[in-house]
């Protein structure tokens, strides 16, 4: 007994002992001594799977008497058992839901038994990137599940995962995924370098990483694609890009990205190429319309009434006669109202959100027009441009699109159409300077790469998609060699 007491006090002054004592202050930490043996068991009951503890550990320990931890390690049928004396690994594993078994002695060695309780959401349907046809799986908050979702789509050994722990406090697991031999080494190294350089204390979501490793951190445009679709991730990995998955985040980041990629939906690949191309072009047009329509309205109505054709002029004047505000103010008020509706709708549960949408759209809209506060023409323009901004398949970029409209409005008021052109020039300058993981963001428009056009503004059929995008700088450029069949020389009806 005496010996026990001495060793116990020696244990408490050892580093692991101090750790255990520190943890004991927390209410969910459990420490107890096994009956008739010198071993102690400690764990966070909130992190540990009770099933593993009772079925696989306690029953075995009860049946037999062990002399050393080494024996115990052989007897317990759980994978990844570690026997260590190292403080850092004990600390880390304890926080990751391991059960530790140790003796209270001066130099304690600990047996670490993983028994992490996975509280998982089921894999469900993608919500922000929903598609009518095609796969309907979305990432969940568990990194392992997510990697599983991707790896099952790329069953090759070249598919590699590099894992890092990022965040001084959150210790978030961040995985960099790529296919060796297809992805460019330099891209992978850039990503790894930037991730290891992150010094922030908490990484809650992949978007944290996205913002921290972006080439230009002040740009409203996202420079890496943020997606919740494992199929999309798998497909870009096979093109030679790099993906970053973060534990606790239901979305992955892929890069290097181009501006065009933000307008391509995964659905484009499951419909026929000509239809898909048409929809993609519609999306590009929608974005242009969304950015430019209200500024053009303000510019034309403030300075260039000459440009309105006679028939349209009558309609416009009679809808605007009696509106107390100048076009700029009218437009800003309406745009602001739409943003308000969107914010309110996004913060509320779906059902209530819908109601808000209807109330806002119909009631406020009609009332504003009837009260003579806005013109119905502008109401249509603003509503359409808001609608158009939601056509982007990647959510992050639609925010950028809606934001850059406001400087456009100001410029339109200052210099009319010239102001709109000047603001476009500023945006173009910004886009030209942007890079994604050091690769040009506007590719394939600048630098012009005709080969990459096959999957940019339009999507050509699969038999034309023979090479991987040059943007990724992959060494393995050929996707497949098309099967060339001899031309059919028979006549019609032969």
């Amino acid at each position: 007994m005496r010996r026990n007491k001495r060793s116990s006090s020696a244990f408490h002054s050892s580093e692991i002992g101090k750790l255990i004592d520190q943890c004991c202050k927390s209410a969910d930490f459990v420490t107890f001594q096994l009956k008739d043996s010198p071993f102690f068991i400690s764990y966070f009951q909130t992190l540990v799977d009770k099933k593993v503890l009772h079925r696989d550990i306690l029953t075995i320990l009860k049946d037999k008497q062990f002399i050393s931890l080494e024996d115990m390690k052989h007897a317990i049928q759980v994978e990844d058992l570690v026997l260590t004396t190292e403080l850092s690994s004990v600390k880390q594993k304890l926080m990751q839901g391991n059960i530790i078994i140790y003796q209270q002695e001066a130099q304690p060695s600990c047996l670490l038994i993983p028994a992490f309780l996975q509280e998982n959401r089921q894999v469900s349907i993608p919500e922000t990137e929903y598609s009518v046809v095609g796969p309907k799986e979305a990432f969940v908050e568990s990194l392992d599940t997510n990697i599983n979702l991707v790896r099952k789509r790329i069953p090759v050994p070249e598919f590699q995962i590099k894992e890092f722990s990022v965040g001084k406090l959150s210790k978030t697991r961040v995985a960099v995924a790529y296919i060796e031999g297809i992805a460019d080494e330099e891209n992978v190294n850039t990503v790894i370098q930037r991730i290891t350089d992150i010094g922030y204390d908490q990484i809650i979501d992949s978007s944290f990483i996205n913002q921290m490793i972006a080439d230009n951190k002040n740009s409203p445009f996202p420079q890496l694609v943020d997606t919740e679709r494992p199929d999309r991730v798998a497909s870009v990995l096979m093109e030679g890009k790099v993906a970053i998955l973060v534990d606790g985040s239901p979305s992955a980041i892929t890069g290097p990205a181009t501006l065009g990629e933000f307008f391509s939906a995964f659905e484009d690949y499951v419909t026929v190429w000509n239809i898909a191309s048409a929809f993609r072009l519609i999306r590009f047009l929608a974005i242009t319309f969304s950015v430019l329509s209200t500024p053009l309205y303000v510019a034309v109505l403030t300075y260039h009434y000459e440009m309105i054709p006679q028939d349209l002029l009558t309609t416009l004047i009679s809808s605007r006669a009696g509106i107390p505000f100048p076009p700029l103010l009218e437009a800003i008020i309406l745009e602001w109202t739409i943003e308000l509706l969107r914010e309110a709708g996004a913060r509320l549960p779906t059902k209530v959100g819908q109601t808000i949408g209807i109330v806002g759209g119909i009631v406020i809209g009609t009332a504003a027009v009837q009260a003579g506060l806005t013109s119905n023409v502008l109401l249509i323009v603003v509503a359409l441009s808001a609608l158009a901004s939601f056509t982007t398949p990647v959510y992050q970029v639609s925010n950028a699109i809606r934001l850059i409209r406001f400087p456009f409005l100001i410029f339109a008021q200052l210099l009319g159409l010239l102001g709109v052109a000047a603001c476009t020039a500023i945006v173009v300058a910004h886009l030209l300077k942007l890079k994604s993981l050091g690769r040009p963001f506007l590719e394939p428009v600048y630098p012009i790469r005709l080969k990459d056009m096959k999957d940019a503004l339009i999507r050509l059929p699969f038999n034309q998609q023979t090479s991987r995008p040059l943007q990724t700088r992959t060494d393995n450029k050929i996707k497949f060699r098309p099967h060339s069949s001899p031309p059919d020389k028979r006549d019609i009806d032969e």
Partner: protein
Amino acid sequence: MLPLPSEDKKVSPYLAFYIINSMQIGIVVLSFERFLVKEAGQDAWISVLIAGVATHIILWMTFQITIKGENDIAVIHKDLFGKWIGGLLTLLLITYLMTLFIMIMRAYIDVIQVWMFPHLQTWYMAFVLAILVYLYFTGGFRVMVGLCVLSFMLTIPLLMLKAFPLKSAHLSYLLPVMEHSPAEILSGAKKMSVIFSGFEVVLFCYPFFKQGIRAHKWAQLGAAFTTSVYLAAVLVSLLYFSEGQLEKTLWPTLTLWKIVDFPFLERFEYAGIAIWLFVMLPNLCLYIWAVTRGLKQLFSIKQKKSILFLLLLAIIASSFITDGVQIRNFSATIDRISFFILFAYIPFIYLYQWIWQKVRKNK
């Protein structure tokens, strides 16, 4: 002497097409027909073709100079004429480019003031343009070349608008062909060749091409495209305006845009002038870029610093030119200098370099 630019600052040779094209097409496209028709009447289009051919030759010489010198013109000057005289020549050349910068900036502002906003102050618009130029300038040469490409794509649809005036075209205005004497046509071509200037920038940006020799081919293509654009412009104007009218019209292209008539948009000239900003920006950016490069070669002034000074100079200088007549006189002077640079100075350097290299080889 500066080290040659590093590989990641260089651009692919095919981009020479866009650089040459967007440098040659500028504010003059809106107004060049008038000078031409005064000289060559309805045969003006022949003058355009002749000037186009002359441009190809001078462009060839320009590339030969830089290919042989394997660096930009400042270094070549120094090699050929020594530090002092060479330096002086470079200084004169960049002064010329800077004057061009101020001139086209002022000319564009003039178009805006006449056609859109008579009340717009010159310094205000010059300030806005300077900011835009600065934004592109800080992106470096690659970004400016990107602007050339994008402006090419944005403005190429404007060519389609030429279809509208063709509806009321009179074919008889073009006939009979060769009514004017060869001397008149040549003097028209002389006017025109000045309009094709802009490719002098190659003297400075040549080291920025990966495989400069291949860039030459693309540059020639760019020049050919420019010729066809000017040819289309002059043909449409000749068909649409009667001769007496065209001689009086200051900006025929803008007048032509007046009749563009879409169901949702009329009077296209307002939109056209705004879109023309994208034609002006590559011009402005590359001219001032060449000037800053030259200054850096001569006096090792950082481009970051010199650009601010030069832009300020341009704003002040352009607001001193107050009326249309002054602008036209100024641009006429510049035209004479341009003609001298293109057809005397460049061939001279070419021949001198050729002889110089022969002599050196014989030693």
